[in-house]
């Protein structure tokens, strides 16, 4: 953590490499220098710079969800996680890129243009928290926060070779996170290693009375779980996550990791989550449905962009939304509006909620026989910029292994577990029981300690 490096080292690094990576979208050096003067030495985060995804509200700082429709929007308040980071002595190090409103898996739908994968700048960094992952992977910040609705933290963490965690739904306050799909969204840490992940999670986690979906529980210190010890632990390997079509390098890296875990003393068993195959379609009903409603407020009335304001109310709505939402946002608004329409609600939204319950029950059952699950984070490593942008369905498939955790609410962490022959990182996903972040941190840490993937740095 920032102990060995000062924030000025990070500022220099940003100056040197972000021209290539394009992780940062709003960056105010003067404000950072001012904040630095007010920092206390002994604080939990000890002045560590934290990059913030552009959909998390920072008071008086541009917060735009990488969308033209929020052009110029500066929230008058801080998200709860921002207050917590500040209180813990973290330094807010600017806003980082994302897919517009977190709709995407490649960071390409941003109105600011794509962020690059530090391991190969012709490749996407993953998404939607691509800016957070790329900034950490390229050493511009030691840690970042992102949001995960269907894999938006874990997938870019995997593709950029870093650690990313989606906590249990309700562990971290969503107050100040600009909503994509409220019942799925969760803020989480992206860090270079598991230790920093546990430290940042200590800061982020906790009940917030401003978020009715946050859960009041005794506060835990996740750094206690940083021990290399898997004895007495049963790890389940769900067959549905090892399907045809997985990239061979991914399959090999994950299979090797499972062997390592077994060698370290974990008991590994085969398990089944039979409803996994419905997760993607279920997600693509529920998430757009909620999004279509959450995005209703971007209408040109109060804040952000406005177009056609002199042509009457309806024209203002139409022109503002037509001109300022990108294609993927429009696609999801249409999907969601359709799924909620009278006459279709029962067939789509209600049905999807029932499937969601089934998926949740799958996890409940499987956690009766094992403590956590091991899967690949993504079916394939990063793809080239532009490769899938016109093929939404194949893009949606990148989240196939991460989505079930959002639908069920369970926590998941992705740790680096190897590289393809082209030098692109591969991620290992550990899924845990509800509010049992301790176990997945313990497994991820143990695994990390017997590998050197997290020590590697991309050449820039």
């Amino acid at each position, binding site marked *: 953590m920032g102990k060995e490096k000062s924030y000025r080292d990070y500022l220099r690094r940003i100056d040197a490499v972000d021209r290539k990576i394009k992780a940062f979208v709003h960056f105010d050096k003067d404000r950072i220098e001012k904040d630095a003067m007010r920092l206390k030495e002994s604080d939990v985060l000890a002045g560590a710079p934290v990059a913030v995804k552009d*959909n*998390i*509200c920072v008071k008086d700082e541009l*917060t735009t*969800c990488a969308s033209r429709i*929020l052009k110029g*929007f500066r*929230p*008058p*308040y801080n*998200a709860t996680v921002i207050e917590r980071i500040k209180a813990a002595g973290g330094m807010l190090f600017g806003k980082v890129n994302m897919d517009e409103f977190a709709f995407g898996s490649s960071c390409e739908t941003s109105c600011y243009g794509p962020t690059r994968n530090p391991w190969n700048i012709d490749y996407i960094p993953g998404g939607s928290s691509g800016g957070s992952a790329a900034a950490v992977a390229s050493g511009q910040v030691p840690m970042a926060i992102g949001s995960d609705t269907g894999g938006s933290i874990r997938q870019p963490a995997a593709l950029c070779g870093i650690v990313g965690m989606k906590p249990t739904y309700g562990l971290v306050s*969503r*107050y*100040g*996170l*600009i*909503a994509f*799909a*409220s*019942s799925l969204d969760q803020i989480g840490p992206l860090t270079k290693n598991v230790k920093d992940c546990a430290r940042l999670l200590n800061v982020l986690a906790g009940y917030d*009375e*401003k*978020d*009715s*979906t946050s859960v009041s529980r005794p506060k835990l210190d996740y750094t206690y779980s940083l021990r290399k010890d898997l004895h007495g632990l049963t790890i389940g390997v769900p067959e549905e996550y090892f399907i045809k079509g997985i990239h061979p390098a991914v399959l090999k890296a994950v299979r090797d990791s499972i062997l390592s875990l077994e060698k370290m003393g974990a008991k590994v068993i085969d398990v089944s989550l039979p409803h996994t195959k419905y997760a993607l379609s279920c997600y693509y009903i529920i998430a757009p*449905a*909620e999004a*279509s*409603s959450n995005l*209703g*407020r971007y*209408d040109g*009335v*109060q*804040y952000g962009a406005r177009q056609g304001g002199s042509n009457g*109310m309806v024209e203002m*709505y139409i022109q503002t939304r037509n001109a300022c939402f990108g294609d993927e946002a429009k696609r999801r608004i249409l999907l969601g*509006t359709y799924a*909620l*329409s*009278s006459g279709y*609600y029962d067939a789509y*939204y209600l049905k999807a909620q029932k499937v969601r319950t089934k998926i949740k029950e799958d996890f409940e059952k499987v956690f009766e026989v094992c403590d956590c699950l091991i899967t690949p984070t993504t079916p394939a490593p990063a793809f080239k910029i532009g490769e899938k942008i016109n093929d939404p369905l194949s893009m949606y498939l990148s989240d196939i292994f991460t989505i079930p955790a959002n639908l069920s609410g369970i926590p998941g962490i992705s740790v680096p577990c190897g590289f393809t022959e082209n030098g692109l990182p591969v991620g290992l996903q550990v899924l845990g029981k509800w509010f049992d972040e301790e176990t997945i941190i313990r497994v991820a840490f143990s695994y990390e300690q017997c590998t050197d993937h997290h020590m590697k740095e991309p050449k820039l």
Partner: protein
Amino acid sequence: MGKYEPVIGLEVHVQLSTKSKVFCGCGANFGSAPNSQTCPVCLGLPGSLPVLNKEAFISAVKVALSLNCEIQSTVKFDRKNYYYPDLPKNYQISQYDKPIAYNGSVEIIGQPGKSVAIRRVHLEEDAGKLLHDQDRTQSVVDYNRAGTPLLEIVTEPVIHSPEDAYNYLLSLKTILSYLDVSDCNMEEGSLRCDANISVRPAGQKKLGVKSELKNMNSFKAVRLALEHEIERHIDLLENKKRVVQETRLWDSDNETTVAMRIKEDTHDYRYFPEPDLVPFHVDEDMVKRIKKELPELPARLMLTLRDRYGFKEKEAALLVADKKVADYFEKTVSVKNSPKAALNWITQDIMSELNARAISIDKFGFVPEYLAELISLIEEGTISGKMAKDILRESAKENISPRKIVDGKGLKQISDASEIAGIIDEVIGENAKSVKDYRSGKKNALMHLVGQVMRKTRGKANPSIVGRTLKEKLDSF
């Protein structure tokens, strides 16, 4: 109208007068500077989240219990999606398929045994207010009202006349005032009423085509609009014309209804469960506690007053129609236990004073203690009923107790029989003609003579002693 039967259902929106808004901590008072009572939550700013205000929920439960509803065991909120600039999120947090309560009834005050069935009661947030400039080229929004708690109370379609609808609204308003949960001011919009009305041939089971009436800003307007709409429907039916299902606005200036240009019925609100508010279980003990603490409601209180004081139901109804009046009465009899006198003074002189001044009884300077004193003064024989009326007006105006007025002005009634007898002798001497008339059988002449005695004493003579003594003297010749 005997050939046709109107069927009416009413939807009432009541603004709950909680300290803060329903999903945030902002104040919910009227009359603040535009947009001064707002925060990220009620402005619907990106990233903000709603948190249910417990006070609003408790008020809702109070109302639902008072309307004899069944409280549901789980409470859930839904989003109602539609676009309008006064709606900051472009969805309203409301309750769709699981309202707080179902199946209640409102007893009509003053008509024992008559009640209106309530279908459901649900809690939701209000919208802001759009203001247009004079040329209507620009509009601005005041979000102070956005997020204030609203309770929607829906009746079954069981009302069959505008008069019954009117009485239901009065009874509902009375119940709400007893609970002290709303200002219930239709002009200020803290109580709003829409009506669904259809007309069918008498005896037919199937409902006719309905129209939905909006824009009525008083109970009287609701009654007028319904009367007008029933006539319009009957006219259409009589002339074999089709009744169109539509929303119509009451035009109070022209006393007519006009079809709304935008067809609201075609809206698809895309209701779905509000993911930001987790459904929660209603604590039965809490409901029991709230029920226990409810005040005695008007229908019940009317029976209590009837039985305790031997009033007629109609008399008791006059007192309970306004909780403040009932409180005033109770306070008065607690000081001076003369219920019948208190009833008469309140429902006659005091009510007309209040009407003349257009104030409510709790703002009236003539407090219950004064009324108790006034009644005592009469019963003691210190003042006459006629004097009392003047003293009441003066006491209310000057804020001085009746006894002080009596003492200060020497208004004390003359009850001394010999003093009165002397004056009567004078009057008999001065009014020979009237005395003659009386004795020749014109009994009316007595009143003239009484009047003369009162004039001489400037109204202070005890009228019953005057009457009795005068009669004795005249008859004894």
